[in-house]
């Protein structure tokens, strides 16, 4: 037992042969979707149980149900043999369940101590952070954490923030931990450290549910794997002896071939050249420094890095959403640094933005309107200062047909479309013409396999047509599959430009961590 775990009544000491957690027939519906359909899941003590599935397979919903964030429509949950029904996360925590969500539940402007104090059940009403240190240190030492209690969360790296979240769960006395895509913000090396922490947890008899869609890490750390597809359990297997290709097939429902980069055309002349680029944030902090590389026409260059190392700023600066502090950006041998969004777009820079719902479309506008969102100043959609709605409608009909956008009509409100179809709207608009430079940020994030393949096909098509394509992604598989070369960013600097052919993933990982 943890030294500061909440004293728990009888049921923690019940029959140890019962599984720690047993979910049976859990069903959760949303309008038009069955997010979980009679899902069964069992986790034993000292087990790391991976929950594998694509985005939208229902992993998160299942965990929300377990954690008391959502009420199930049907099904039972037994914890240590007792049936439970949580009204809110506070019930879940009291019962010994901890959640480390993908988006950390931390107040960024508060200190680590304040964040921990709020979450602990027996924090005193007055001076809540005062007696914290002693409590934290014992646990932190056992798991090999270093904790800066007085640091503000905003000043911590994502890896450090994640450790604060894990620590929080442990201090609350969790003996079943849910980790939601824990490695998505980590370098491969930081991920290794996390896996070591998981080993300690196993040794202490805790149960861990590891949500992931990455096969290799699942096979590496999990004892058992449950695969979800479209809200249903399609398999539960021992990790030992399971096969990655087999799991992948189960996950997507058919066999997937990780495509090799098929005969790409010979890259042409340099279209984008970046030299000595420096970008500072609003308070003078360096976001990008001494960044330089080239992209040729007919070439896809990938940008790798852990989130928050300057990729977003790079995309913003190239598309005019941010002004560089110093350095040169040359597009087709013309200086374009510091030009605004509109001028850059007119010069052939298109942008598939990271946050497609907030930035890529206006959710409350019609599909047809969003299909001309940036082209509304160009013929045939604009005639002088007026808009030609007939041309806009014609364009929409064409795009909906060509890109098979699933929408009730061109007049439908864009917000009502699925994520994949919103992305199709953006792709149809941005990749409809003959751009010179394509900046694609996380273009397949959250999309299902078919939509991802569509996205990749369109990017390849632009490459084949001679555009320079810059692909920013956190998915190393995607980068390796599409890119000719990979630029690695760490703390705003380029730590490597690697030929994608035959590159070693470990090499990329090291450079993402700033080593080498």
């Amino acid at each position, binding site marked *: 037992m943890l030294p500061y775990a909440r004293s728990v009544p009888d049921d923690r000491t019940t029959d140890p042969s019962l599984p720690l957690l047993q979910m049976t*027939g859990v069903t959760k519906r949303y*309008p038009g979707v069955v997010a979980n359909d009679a899902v069964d899941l069992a986790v034993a003590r000292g087990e790391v149980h991976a929950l594998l599935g694509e985005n939208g397979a229902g992993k998160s919903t299942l965990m929300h149900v377990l954690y008391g964030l959502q009420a199930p429509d049907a099904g039972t949950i037994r914890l240590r043999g007792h049936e439970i029904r*949580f009204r809110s996360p506070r019930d879940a925590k009291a019962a010994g369940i901890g959640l480390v969500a993908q988006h950390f539940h931390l107040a960024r402007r508060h200190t680590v101590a304040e964040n921990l104090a709020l979450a602990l059940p027996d924090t005193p009403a007055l001076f809540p952070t005062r007696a914290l240190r002693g409590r934290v240190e014992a646990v932190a030492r056992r798991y090999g954490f270093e904790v800066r209690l007085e640091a503000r969360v905003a000043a911590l790296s994502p890896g450090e923030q994640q450790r604060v979240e894990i620590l929080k769960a442990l201090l609350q006395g969790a003996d079943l931990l849910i980790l939601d895509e824990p490695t998505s913000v980590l370098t491969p090396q930081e991920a290794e450290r996390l896996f070591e922490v998981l080993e300690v947890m196993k040794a202490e008899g805790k149960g861990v549910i590891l949500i992931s869609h990455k096969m290799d890490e699942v096979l590496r750390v999990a004892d058992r794997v449950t695969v979800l597809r479209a809200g249903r359990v399609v398999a539960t297997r021992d990790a030992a002896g399971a096969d990655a290709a087999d799991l992948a097939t189960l996950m997507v429902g058919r066999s997937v071939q990780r495509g090799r980069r098929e005969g790409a055309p010979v890259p042409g002349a340099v279209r984008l050249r970046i030299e000595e680029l420096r970008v500072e944030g609003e308070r003078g902090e360096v976001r990008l420094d001494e960044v330089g590389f080239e992209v040729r026409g007919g070439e896809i260059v990938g940008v790798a890095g852990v989130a928050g190392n300057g990729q977003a700023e790079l995309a913003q600066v190239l598309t005019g959403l941010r002004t560089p502090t110093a350095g040169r950006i040359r597009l087709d041998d013309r200086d374009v640094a510091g030009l605004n969004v*509109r001028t850059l777009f007119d010069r052939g820079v298109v942008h598939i933005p990271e946050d497609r719902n907030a930035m890529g479309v206006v959710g409350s506008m019609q599909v047809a309107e969003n299909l001309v969102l940036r082209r509304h100043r160009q013929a045939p959609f604009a005639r002088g200062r007026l808009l030609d709605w007939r041309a806009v409608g014609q364009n929409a009909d064409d795009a909906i047909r060509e890109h098979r956008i699933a929408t009730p009509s061109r007049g439908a409100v864009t917000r009502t479309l699925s994520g994949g179809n919103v992305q199709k709207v953006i792709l149809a608009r941005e990749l409809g013409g003959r751009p010179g430079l394509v900046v694609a940020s996380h273009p397949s994030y959250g999309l299902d396999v078919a939509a991802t393949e569509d996205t990749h096909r369109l990017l390849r098509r632009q490459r084949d047509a001679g555009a320079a394509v810059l692909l920013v992604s956190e998915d190393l598989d995607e980068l390796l599959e599409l890119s000719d070369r990979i630029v690695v960013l760490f703390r705003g600097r380029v730590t490597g430009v690697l030929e994608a052919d035959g590159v070693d993933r470990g090499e990329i990982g090291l450079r993402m961590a700033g080593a080498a």
Partner: protein
Amino acid sequence: MSAPPVDATPPQGDRVYRTAWRIERRAHAGPLLAWGVSLGAVLVAMLLTGILFAAFGVDPAEALRRIVDRTLLDGRGFSEVVRRAIPLMLAGVGLTLAFRARFWNIGAEGQLLVGAVAASGVALFSDLPGPLLLPAMFAAAFVAGAAWGLGPALLKVRLGVNEIITTLMLNYVAIYLVRWLINGPWKGTSLSGFAYSDVFEQAAWIPTWGATRLHWPTLAFAVLLALLVAWLLGRTRFGFEVRMMGESPEAARYAGVDFFRTTVALVAVSAGAAGLAGFGEAAGIHHRLVDPNSLSQGYGYTAIIVALLARRDPLAALVTALFLGWVQASGDVMQVALRLPSQITGVTQGLVLLCILATEPLLRYRLTRVRIPVAAASAQGGSADGGPASGAGGREVG
């Protein structure tokens, strides 16, 4: 095909279903529903006002009958309704444009007052020949109103200063500006002891309809303005960009909208329209610069309700302005014929706004009947949604 989980699955044979009402989020509310809800909100507000009447010892049905008699069924009464709607139309239509871009201009009152000041200045102190006088006053009022809105607009785009507070503060500045003028430099010479300016010469009076106070040229222009704003929003690049800015600033930035130019332009039109309302009141009704309380009677604030009740649609604002003009005109009837305090209209206006807010969830949610499968094991647990049974074996959750 796969290793089965350690524990057996529950009996799945025959499923039990039950039905339940559930609140669901709507993706989108159609215009018909939106209008229906607005109408409902107005009716509820009227009903509450009726209760207020009863509290003052007046039979609501009888009161309504007499109000309708004297405002809608009486020519002169109706002209009062329309002439009160004129400033509400001008300012309200302007506000629909600003609110579309989520520029929360709460300063129509001040913009109206400085419009009146500018128009009065031209009428009192320029040497323009008669026929040019009214056009010059018109232009001056528009420019003054626009200028009054420009400061907050610049502060918002350049520094991100909240425009609600700045536009509102300028209302007070405008009130004291008018008071200063009519007590000081512009104080009338003909009537000493009263705080208002001299009467304009006749050429500076906006013609009225017969013997009423209905200054119809302003009304005609208000209708034109509504058409113009509707056309701007629906047919032009400018309007498209205004809507983008309001619906999603991030997407507008991505689409290359020039926030500075667009904001300045739309605020100029919005605040300028309110300035014109001031021109109408000064040159059409009072024919002199008078105290802010007589000049405006809160038109600038009521115009906010006009625009919101119209759901930010400029053409609909013509209708809602007539409605609120009727509410205001009813105040006179209440006072004279029913011996009710005219302040009731202020409460009614507030109620209208509150009722619109209260009914807003109807546009975002709907009640649907759903069939929920109940796994046999949990059927005895009772309600599966809504009210889950006590958590974790009745453990304290406090």
